[in-house]
């Protein structure tokens, strides 16, 4: 690699940064007082000939403490799983399920109080066609394979999946005549199936409310949509049904390495001795890779915000569309400049699998790996920008919004490989968009590697079908009647907006990955996801959890540890003691 050229590029941004080669990687060290500069140095250090960028430039005065569970016990002490998966996002859960096909022991650890609480629940659930990717990228390889797997996967898991197309809409004639054919050609070269050009008239047949400026569109029929957190949870549940173990509130605190192998992993719940460690730690995957002595990349967190609209606005889009970004946006829609515009397709308008319209996301580089707070400027700029595509969009349609942090590497690609410097680690790192699409395919490759490394056999009784109760509101009255006859709780509606019954909530509490929190129940069966945002049902949900689990209401949490909702009784002489 040409370190000199890299150093020159970096020093143009920040002369004080030290640029060196480290085990085949480009390492940057020093201290700067602007995150933007640190980010740009990282980008400048990318080279096709290095293993990756190790951007260790410190941001002056910046500390972000990793959110860790305070729990300390010895529940896992001395365990010797064949495979330890670090991280319970979609990647980790897809891995757990794939690995549970093998006759081996699998332990997944997740530091939060549920799986899929990071980026896996904070994205649009789009199953990408792959058109925005490039040849040679791992992303492309896995997206094409993952996309093709989704229909079957969701059938097995009992998750909703819709192959709703994605449309790239043009606002000018030149885009229609120049960009459209180029995109179709690119699609052909990349291997993206089922792409076609649509005239505005053809588009109106498919999307009754297209923007007025439409001059033509590239239609990608291979796109799809899922509920990303439901898929994540379903993967974990099916893995557990097939013998995998999931340990929540569990964080990897350190690893003992010997002769290029991980001997043990220290957690807050005891030390475990795995044969293989798979890194699926998302925004912290570089930290875990470092712990494993195998780091060749750096995560630079990139925040994105999405808005969810009332189901009444579902007519805005039947599928998913975005305005082509080649023509400049009208001035009123332009975003304030952010370092990383360009590493998102610019967001769009899409229908979620649950029937809401989602608009966004945007992309903002930030030093925080876990700061998922929203800001008014982001929300308003998304509304301004997406109003171009969904012309009737207004702030009054919005029922909620959320941010997620993408685990981006400077190479802007996934890191999916066996360990380079450490023998028994496998990296599935830097899994950001389109990670939901890719994760199931990545998990298949990792399964094959593990199988070979351990000489494992397939498990004979693996059952790919997850046991679950279907969403009752989606059933016919006759089918629903049968459920109610079996258990009247299925006829007792708790969440009016999303029509969720008490029976479904109790089923979620009895599921293989039991998470007795209001958010856990919300992610599984949707009470509180509607337009009242839990105003009516949250007291009921708290009560149902408390009753079913034999807890006091004040011990029911919203999400993670510490997220208590109530302070105890108002009466009985100040027993309210929190």
């Amino acid at each position, binding site marked *: 690699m040409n370190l000199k050229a890299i150093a020159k590029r970096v020093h143009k941004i920040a002369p004080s940064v030290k640029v060196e080669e480290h085990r085949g990687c480009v390492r940057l060290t020093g201290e700067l007082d602007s995150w933007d500069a640190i980010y740009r140095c990282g980008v400048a250090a990318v080279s096709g000939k290095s293993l990756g960028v190790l951007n260790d430039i410190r941001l002056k005065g910046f500390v972000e403490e990793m959110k860790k569970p305070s729990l300390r016990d010895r529940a896992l002490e001395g365990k010797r799983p064949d495979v330890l998966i670090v991280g319970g996002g979609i990647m980790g859960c897809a891995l757990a399920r794939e690995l549970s096909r093998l006759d081996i022991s699998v332990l997944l650890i997740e530091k939060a109080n549920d799986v899929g609480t990071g980026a896996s629940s904070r994205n649009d659930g789009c199953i990408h066609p792959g058109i925005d990717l490039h040849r040679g990228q791992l992303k492309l390889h896995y997206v094409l394979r993952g996309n093709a797997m989704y229909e079957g996967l969701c059938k097995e898991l009992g998750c909703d999946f819709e192959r709703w197309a994605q449309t790239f809409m043009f606002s000018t004639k030149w885009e229609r005549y120049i960009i459209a054919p180029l995109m179709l050609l690119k699609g052909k070269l990349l291997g993206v199936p089922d792409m076609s050009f649509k005239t505005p008239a053809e588009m109106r047949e498919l999307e009754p409310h297209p923007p007025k400026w439409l001059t033509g569109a590239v239609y990608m029929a291979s796109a799809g949509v899922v509920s990303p957190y439901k898929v994540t949870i379903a993967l974990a549940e099916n893995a557990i049904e097939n013998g995998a173990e999931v340990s929540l509130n569990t964080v990897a605190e350190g690893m003992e390495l010997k002769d290029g192998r991980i001997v043990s992993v220290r957690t807050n719940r005891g030390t475990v001795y795995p044969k293989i460690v798979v890194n699926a730690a998302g925004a912290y995957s570089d930290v875990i890779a470092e712990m494993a002595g195998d780091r060749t990349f750096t995560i630079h967190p990139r925040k994105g915000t999405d808005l969810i609209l009332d189901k009444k606005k579902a007519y805005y889009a039947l599928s998913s569309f975005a305005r082509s970004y080649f023509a400049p946006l009208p001035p009123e829609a332009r975003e304030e400049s952010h370092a990383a515009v360009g590493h998102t397709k610019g967001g769009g308008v899409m229908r979620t699998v649950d029937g809401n319209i989602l608009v966004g996301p945007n992309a903002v580089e930030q030093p925080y790996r876990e700061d998922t*707070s929203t800001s*008014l400027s982001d929300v308003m700029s998304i509304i301004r920008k997406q109003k171009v595509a969904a012309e009737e969009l207004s702030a009054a349609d*919005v029922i909620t919004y959320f941010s997620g942090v993408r685990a981006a590497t400077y190479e802007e690609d996934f890191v999916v490989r066996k360990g380079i410097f450490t023998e028994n680690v496998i990296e599935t790192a830097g899994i950001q968009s389109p990670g939901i699409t890719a994760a199931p395919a990545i998990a298949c490759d990792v399964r094959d590697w593990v199988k070979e490394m351990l000489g494992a056999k397939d498990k004979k009784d693996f059952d790919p079908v997850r046991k679950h109760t279907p969403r009752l509101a989606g059933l016919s*009255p006759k089918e629903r009647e049968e459920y*109610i006859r079996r258990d009247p709780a299925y006829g007792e509606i708790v969440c009016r907006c999303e029509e969720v019954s008490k029976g479904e909530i109790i089923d979620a509490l009895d599921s293989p990955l039991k998470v007795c929190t209001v958010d856990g129940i919300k992610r599984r069966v949707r009470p509180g996801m509607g337009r009242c945002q839990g105003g009516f049902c949250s007291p009921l949900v708290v009560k149902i959890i408390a009753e079913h689990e034999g807890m006091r209401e004040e011990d029911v949490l919203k*999400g993670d540890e510490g997220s208590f909702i109530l302070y105890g009784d108002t009466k009985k002489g100040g027993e309210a003691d929190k």
Partner: protein
Amino acid sequence: MKEYDVIVIGGGPAGLAAAESACKAGAKTAVLEREARLGGILKQCVHDGFGLIRFGEKLAGPEYAERYIDLVEALPVDTYTLTFVTEIKKEKDGFAVTCVSREGMLSFRTRALVLATGCRERTAKQVLIQGTRPAGVFTAGTAQNFVNLMGKLPAKRCVILGSGDIGLIMARRLTLEGAEVEGVYEVKPEPSGLTRNIHQCLHDFDIPLHLSHTVTRVFGKDRLTAVEVAEVDDRMRPIKGTERVVECDALILSVGLIPENELAESLGVKLDPSTKGPECDQTYMSTVEGVFSAGNALNVFDLVDYVSECAADAGGNAARMLPSGECVRLEKGKGILSYVPHRIDLAKPSDRVVLFFRSAKDMDRATLRISADGKEVYKKKFAFLRPPEMQRVEIDFSAFGLNAKSKLTVELEEN
């Protein structure tokens, strides 16, 4: 399949009053309530002040509700609790209503419907509050449920955003239960709740009211730890530099109520953008023949007594189902924020029409004026009007000599 003349959806104060009068008018009547008990939101409104007009007494919410429940239960009205309407279909001469209940799927047929579905609260995200998503952000009604029905304290030191009545009531309630209310913040330059509630809920307990202020952000990863408050300009936008961080463990929101009209909309009922309830005639019939609207689903009232009154009328009219005729729209003139009814049906009695209205702004000495074809036909003077305080007047529209081509306007003038 059960057949009724009138089905009332919702068993709160509006639904109960509608059912009582529908039944008394001779209709075979049913009430469908999705909660386990009748009474609606009044069950959790343990404060007093209800019933002064209806019963001539100051009652607490549950008392008012139970009185109505007693009235309805003494009548041959069928009440279905834990019964949730999933679909209503318009059929020839009536409606098919499908419900889910613990007994299974229930099907009803009815000639007329009274939608008494109440309202819901606006949420934090709907007023664009930013930041993290910790526990400790509650709408006032949710907090009220926790305190008054469950007997659990949701806050020890809280900030209340919005000076709507429920917010003010909760400020007092939480204070009485031993929590500290750091302050009530109101984005508008005037309070949103009734003046008497500002007095007896805030002043009595020395709780500060910060007008022209809003909460912009919440902090805390798991439980809320603080909120950011800021002063707002005359367009209600936060003013840079006025931000202040207030340490607290809860944010309670009383930022508006939205009539619940999802069922009405599914039937094609036209809504009024200012009330967010159905457009109706003087019998509270919506734009869909046979569909009546009552209570807070029609128009968010500040007095339950008026809810009962309007619902009783709606219920009685649903039972009678007078044939519709030509209508005159009541057009909105200046100074008026919202009003019901929206039209006068000339084929139906109009000699005793109750007009509920709110002024668009605070007014000292104002005149309500109705004109037909540019000519003043009615006027009434008011000492003072405030938007949060709904006014009620009775007007004899039959005396105005209206015909289908008349142009009818209602306006308020400050003098």
